[in-house]
């Protein structure tokens, strides 16, 4: 009788608290080493890019290789500013949450390049379908921090009228779609949006972001299937920050294959990029955008990055990963790396960095002061509870109007 050798495989545990950080699983490519195919290149020539890693900045902070987007120092400074603002804003909002002035917060620290470089590589009228860790998209597109803060406060100026948890923003006129608390739903919606754009003959594309953990949802498969079938002008971004709350990217299916490698199976180019390399992210997004605009269809991009902070204010990563893991992350910090590059170009200094941080901190404080005037949990004006019955339908049905009147009477209105 043949031996029965089938065993349930549980992917090896990542380094846990008390153990040394271990990123030996992470495969990288030297900066400048990965070729840049033509946007019209056949899938088979693009396919190796799914297992390589596009990198532009080398360890010395020099931009090298065919993916160098040759951005002006002024543009790089803008990118740096957006990234620093995103990080300082996140840090400030975290402290505000810890003081009990907002209910919840979720930082994007360590992942700023993914959003900021992404938004800068696209046009303002391209439609963005973010996840909840893409605040850099809002910053890069210039949404006022006051508006973002008011959303987190659920106050009288909250764009969501108190209907969403903090950070689940939306921005109609800024072409950024509403963030759902349910993961991955925006991925196939972005494809549908892009299909409509193509159907209407518009020169606009959609770009969506999800975490590597959420790629396990059926929505991911639906998005890639529809994007491939209809060659939709869409950029599908997987932000592989190594952690889905407490489970490693291996539990999401990253042990034996990269997330970018999902693409070619659907007929979609998959490109793996150093997500902490501002220039590489910009270049790959630009390549994918050009492809989409020229009618060559969708691109799947895996941004390899590291979630430097907790999943959210409801999470404590010291319970499941080594404290010092972030420092051991091989791809460094996106802000420090861009600073270094600008210094190499002679377009930045420690002093300028210091002044920038002070300026942005003062701006954030100023914005918070203004946001608070529109109401905080303890003082100032508050939202009219009667608004909670609005926008369920375009016109309020009679049955709902009766419930509104009931609450009104109860509140003595």
């Amino acid at each position, binding site marked *: 009788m043949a031996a029965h050798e089938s065993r349930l495989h549980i992917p090896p545990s990542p380094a846990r608290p008390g153990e040394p950080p271990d990123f030996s699983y992470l495969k990288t490519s030297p900066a400048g080493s990965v070729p840049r195919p033509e946007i019209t290149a056949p899938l088979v020539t693009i396919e190796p890019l799914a297992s390589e890693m596009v990198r532009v900045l080398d360890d010395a902070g020099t931009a090298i290789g065919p993916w160098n987007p040759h951005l002006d120092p002024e543009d790089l400074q803008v990118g740096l500013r957006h990234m620093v603002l995103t990080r300082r804003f996140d840090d400030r909002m975290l402290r505000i949450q810890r003081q009990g002035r907002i209910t919840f917060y979720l930082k994007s620290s360590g992942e700023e390049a993914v959003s900021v470089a992404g938004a800068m590589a696209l046009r303002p009228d391209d*439609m963005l*379908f973010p996840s909840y860790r893409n605040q850099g998209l809002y910053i890069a597109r210039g949404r006022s921090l006051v508006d973002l803060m008011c959303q987190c406060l659920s106050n009288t100026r909250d*764009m*969501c*009228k108190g*209907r*969403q948890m903090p950070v*689940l923003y*939306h*921005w*109609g006129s800024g072409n950024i*779609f*509403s963030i*759902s608390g*349910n993961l991955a*739903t925006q*991925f*196939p*919606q*972005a*494809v*549908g*949006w*892009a*299909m*409509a*754009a193509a*159907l*209407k003959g518009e020169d606009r594309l*959609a770009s969506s972001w999800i975490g590597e953990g959420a790629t396990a949802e*059926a*929505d991911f*498969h*639906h*998005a890639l*299937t*529809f994007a491939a*079938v209809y060659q939709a002008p869409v950029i599908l971004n997987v932000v592989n920050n190594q952690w889905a709350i407490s489970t490693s990217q291996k539990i999401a299916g990253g042990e034996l294959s990269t997330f970018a490698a999902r693409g070619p199976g659907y007929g979609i180019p998959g490109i793996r990029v150093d997500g902490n390399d501002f220039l590489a992210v910009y270049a790959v997004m630009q390549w994918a955008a050009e492809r989409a605009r020229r009618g060559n269809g969708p691109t799947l991009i895996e941004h390899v990055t590291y979630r430097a902070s907790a999943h959210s204010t409801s999470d404590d990563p010291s319970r499941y990963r080594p404290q010092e893991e972030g420092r051991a992350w091989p791809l460094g910090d996106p802000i420090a790396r861009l600073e270094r590059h600008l210094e190499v170009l002679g377009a930045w200094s420690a002093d300028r960095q210091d002044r920038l941080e002070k300026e942005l901190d003062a701006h954030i404080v100023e914005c918070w002061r203004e946001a608070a005037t529109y109401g905080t949990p303890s003082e100032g004006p508050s939202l009219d509870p009667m608004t909670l019955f*609005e*926008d*369920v*339908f*375009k016109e309020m*049905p*009679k*049955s709902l109007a009766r419930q509104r009147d009931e609450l009104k009477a109860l509140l003595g209105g």
Partner: protein
Amino acid sequence: MPQMNLVQAVNSALDVMLGRDPSVVVMGEDVGYFGGVFRCTEGLQRKYGEHRVIDTPIAEGGIVAAAIGMGVNGLRPVAEIQFADYVYPAFDQIVSELARLRYRTAGEFSAAVTVRMPCGGGIRGGQTHSQSPEGIFTHVCGIKVVMPSNPYDAKGLLVSSIEDDDPVIFFEPKRIYNGPFDGDWHKPAVPWSTHSKGDVPAGHYTVPLCRAEIVRTGADVTILAYGTMVHVAEAAVRLAGVDAEIIDLRTLVPLDTDTMCSSVCKTGRCVIVHEATRFSGFGAELSATVQEECFWHLLAPIQRVTGWDTPYPHAFEWEYFPGPARIAAAIKTVMEAS
């Protein structure tokens, strides 16, 4: 006036809307070249092209998600789910996304999507081609839920649904696609040409999404029904020989409580009929509403006649189906209670 069955009425509504409004697109499994497994989209792709009548992959979740994205980008997609029984992979996209988009963005984003799906049994479809899941959707805030009982209403309600800026789940009772089935499966099928509601105008018209219709006026008992069960209730009333008032709800959300409650206040008795299972079914909502609004006029406890609380069977379809005999027995119960 042209005569149409319910399939042709649905087809005509889609045809009219595709013709009138360039933002309308039809999408779903087999809806394009083939014209749909029930023929509801027959000829539409030939007439309007592959870009307006779109064959999709077999992925209900993807169909609804793509429709939402299209809706956000200004189109009015009409998505077909081949059988209501197949809708569950799209459940999250309908419940968490489509239904709540307007609310969660305080009106900044919305998607005017209509999701059509054939429902109900009586076609030997077993548990995966016979369900009536309307009660699952009426429980979700932010979507309208419609189920016509005849070709005239089907077209007018579907046109209204497509023109509506809110998302609509549009159920098509497949047992009455070809004729007004009265619940007696032994009898030869009757075509819609024998029924006044088989007369369907060729052009554009609407039936509003908030109004029930009194299909038979009566004094002694009110029967609340929708879809196929309207016709079964009519047969039951003939069988029971009572002067019943039959109300076809047509739109379950928003619900025309005025029409139904003023009828029950007049008759003092109420029988609720649906094909879906009983426990937590839509009939429970109707019963509670009637109790709240009409309690002092009631002469007898409200009765519900529904499918049994089992999956829809294949072999014992007619034992499962709430046919005229069961409805007549419920009518008798309320008549004898007072």
